[in-house]
Every structure is written in C-alpha cells, then in structure tokens.
C-alpha cells in the first residue's frame, strides 16, 4: 500500500475540527479520488500527508512509514504535491520552475529525458520557457505545476483541485493528463469538487463530508448504490454515465 490513512483527526486551533476519524488507502498504480464539498477536509488531509498540518490522532503512512516518523523526510521527497493554489513561483521563469521540480534527482540524463517528455505533454511550457511564471494564464500555470510535480518522478502524486477555476477546454486537458498518468502506472490521489469527472476517471473514490468523515467509498457504480452518497452528491452513478 502506498498511502494509508487510519482514523485521522486534524484540528485547527483549539476547537475547529477539520478531519474526524478519516480512513482511506491508495494502492500502487491506483487513481483514487477524494470528492466532497468545500470545507469537507479534503485539502487538509493532503496537507497532513505532506506534514504541513499536524495530526491530532490516528496515523498516516506512506510506504509503511509514518508521517510523524523522523525518517519520513526521505519518503516525503518522493511525494509530489500540486496544491490548490498551484504553488507556482511567480518571480521565477517557467524554465526555472521546472528546474526546481528535478532538484532532488541525481540521474541527470534521465531527468533531461523526463523534462523533454513533459514539454511534449505540455507544449505551452516549451513555448513560454523563458517567460515569467506570473505572466501565464491559470490553465498554463496548472500545466506548469503538474509538469514540475512529475519531474520529481514521484512515488505518489497528490493533485489538489487541479481544475478549480479553469476553462472547460483546460479541464478536459487536465483530466486527459490524469488518465494518461494512470495508464503510465502512476499512483495518484486526486482531490476534486468536480465529482462527475472524478468518478469517471478514478479506480475508486472516497466521498468526504465535513468535518472530514468518509461518507462512502468504492467505484462509481458502488457509490451510486449508497443512498447517503447519492443524496450528498445530488446524482447517482447511472447519471455519471460510468460503465467501468
């Protein structure tokens, strides 16, 4: 198992419970989505995996190593996180942002080949290589954020709301890339509000309800049979049009 979250509790301040007893797992090569409304605790969980917010109860392990373990940093260096705000360095050029993606890698020739592959996947990044990242559109910045994350050659890719606020054509592109990465065997945890598209592309999904409780999990078809999930999402699996 690449990622395992068991009975996680996360609290902001003294009283705001963001995640309450959440458990989920992502196996090697799986594309798992985490869907739910604003404030359901999805992004908080991802930040906890990255060690950016403290865990108040339960455990989170990546490759069987706990995020609270002192040696976790070696594992964390193999996790790529594309945050909700994309995390682009506005004062750096596109090329410099991409260079940072491979900063921990020693296999420089393989890195060069991977960079070439990402530039083919996202041609706009080659076109704007020397341009300041702040000058890119939202969709271009998202492509840069994903390409940079992939250059780490991650063991686990965490995508937090990658289509938020983007034009429909870019949303299609991002979901196409996610499917492509899944086919290449990458292990992905996708956090999305776009439940329909997420259910369509994912192997399994977890539906999260505030404060960070799992309402249901499984394939789109399985989730469609759970009345609480159908009521919460506002549609059933049949409406998603999945036949996976």
């Amino acid at each position, binding site marked *: 198992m690449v990622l395992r979250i068991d009975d996680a509790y996360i609290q902001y301040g003294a009283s705001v419970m963001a995640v309450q007893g959440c458990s989920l797992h992502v196996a090697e090569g799986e594309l798992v989505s985490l869907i739910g409304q604003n404030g359901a605790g999805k992004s908080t969980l991802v930040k906890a995996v990255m060690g950016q917010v403290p865990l108040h109860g339960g455990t989170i392990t990546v490759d069987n190593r706990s995020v609270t373990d002192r040696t976790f940093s070696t594992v964390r260096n193999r996790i790529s996180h594309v945050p909700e705000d994309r995390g682009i360095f506005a*004062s750096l050029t596109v090329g410099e942002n991409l260079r940072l993606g491979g900063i921990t890698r020693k296999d420089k020739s393989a890195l060069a080949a991977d960079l070439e592959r990402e530039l083919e996947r996202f041609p706009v990044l080659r076109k704007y290589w020397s341009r300041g990242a702040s000058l890119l559109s939202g969709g271009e910045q998202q492509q840069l954020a994903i390409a940079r994350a992939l250059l780490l050659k991650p063991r686990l890719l965490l995508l937090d709301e990658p289509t938020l606020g983007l034009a429909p054509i870019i949303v299609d592109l991002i979901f196409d890339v996610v499917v492509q990465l899944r086919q290449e065997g990458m292990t992905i945890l996708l956090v999305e509000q776009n439940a329909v598209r997420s259910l369509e592309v994912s192997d399994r999904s977890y539906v999260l309800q505030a404060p960070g409780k799992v309402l249901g999990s499984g394939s789109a078809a399985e989730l469609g049979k759970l009345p609480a999930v159908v009521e919460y999402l506002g549609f059933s699996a049949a409406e998603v049009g999945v036949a996976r």
Partner: protein
Amino acid sequence: MILEFLISAVGLGALYALLTIGVALLFGVLGLMNFAYGEIVMAGAFAMYLFRDQPWFVALLMAIVFAVVVALLSERLAFHPLRNADPVTLMIASFAVSLAIQSLARMTVLPRTRGVPPEDFLSHRVDLLGADVSVLDLLTLALCGAMLVAVAWMMGRTSLGIQLRAAAEDFQMASSLGVRANLVIPSAFVTVGVLAAIGSAVLVARQGAVSADMGLQPMLIGVVGAVLGGMSSLKGAALGGFLLGAATALLESLLPTDLIAFRDAFLFSALIVVLVVRPQGLLSGAKVRVS
C-alpha cells in the same frame, strides 16, 4: 556637476540596495525581520578597524570573514532553534541578538567610537569626462555595483540562487519540492554576511569611524528600503534601496543648507506617500509569509 551628482547618487543607491537585499533575503527565506542585521555590518566594520594597518583589500577580506562568521553564529545559536517559531518570536529574538552583540562589542572591543583614517587613495579626486569626482564615490559605485551584479548573477544563473529565490517567495512550497532548509538558510546568512561586509567597508570609508551602535543606520536603511520596494520581492527590495539612496543624494544636493538637517523628514514623508498609494511596496508579489 551632473556627472559628479549621478555617480554619487547611483553609488549611494547601490550601497542602499545591497543593504536592503540583505534584509529582504532573510525575511523571504525565514520570515525573519532581522534587526541584528546592523550588528553583522558592525562586525565587518570592526574588522576594517582591526586590520586598518593592512592593505585595504586585506581588511575587506577580513570584514567578509567577520561578518559571515557573525551571521552564521547568529543563525546557528539563535535562529536555528527557533526555525519553526512564529514571525513575532523571531523578530523579538532578532532584537535580543542585536542587543547582545552590540553590548558584547561595547564591553570588549568597541567601548567607544574608534577612528579609522581613510586610505590615502580614497581622499583623492579624479577628473572624469571633465567632472571632478571623488575616488570614494567611484569606489562606492564600483564596489556596490559589482556586488549587485554578482548577486544578480548568483540569484539568476546558479541552482543555489534559484533555490534561494524560490524559498524567499514560498518556503513551504520550495521545501515540498526538495529544496533543503539546511542548505538555503545558512546560504542566505552567508550571502547576507557578504553583502553586509561590503556595505560596512564602504560605510567605514565614508564615515571614518567605527562604533558598537553603528549598525542602527544601515539596519534602518535596509528595513525601510525593503518595505518601500516590497518585502516579498528581492528585485523590489533592491529597487526600494536604490531609490532610497538616490533620493538621499538628491535631497543632499537640492536642499538649502539650513534644511539639510531635516533631510530624513522629507525622505520619510515621501516614503509614507508611496506606501499610502502602494502599501505592498513598489514591486511586491502576492505572497508575504508574515501575517
């Protein structure tokens, strides 16, 4: 007359830009408003005094060594244990470090102001394209200008520079990409030490004296220039410092003699106007890590 003024204004601007980059770099990387920055400058100045009988460039090299050592010691002893502390705690710690170093200097090596006679060559004037220019102004311009070019090269062309810029903009994101805190933070302090040392050499040459509290003015220049340019942007900070220096030189030339004493009042009034119009600073990005 115009060329003489330009060299003086650009030189002072470059000196102030060096000082502001030092402040903005630590603010960006650590969220640290380092009030002990002035004492790093003072350490460099003390080396200029201590090695005043040596050739000038030897004293300059020793100033770099002294300033870098003080910068690294302050990081290791005071700021490293507080790495995850909130910005207010860091700021108070920097006050403590500032006062501790200043008091230590006053108790031991600098109980009173020490004169550092300027090098002979610095008191000369030369003819440049018909203008009568002081060597000190030329040296200020050449040294600080060269240092700014070196910093720009390091920040723009080297892997360390890119990591420093990324860390200065968003430390958490840089860290999650694998930029190592144990590399960039000490590197930032070394860079700050070098910048402070060059600044101290020029200040000692201009003032001809060294004292335990001499760091206050360069620290204020650094903070004010960085706030003016934008704390979250190194380019902005450099621009803020440069404009502050150039405006200082301009006011010194234009103000009537009886108003020169109030130069800073004019300067800071202008600063307030700029900040009212652009509270985030002239070139600030969107991300400032201190709430």
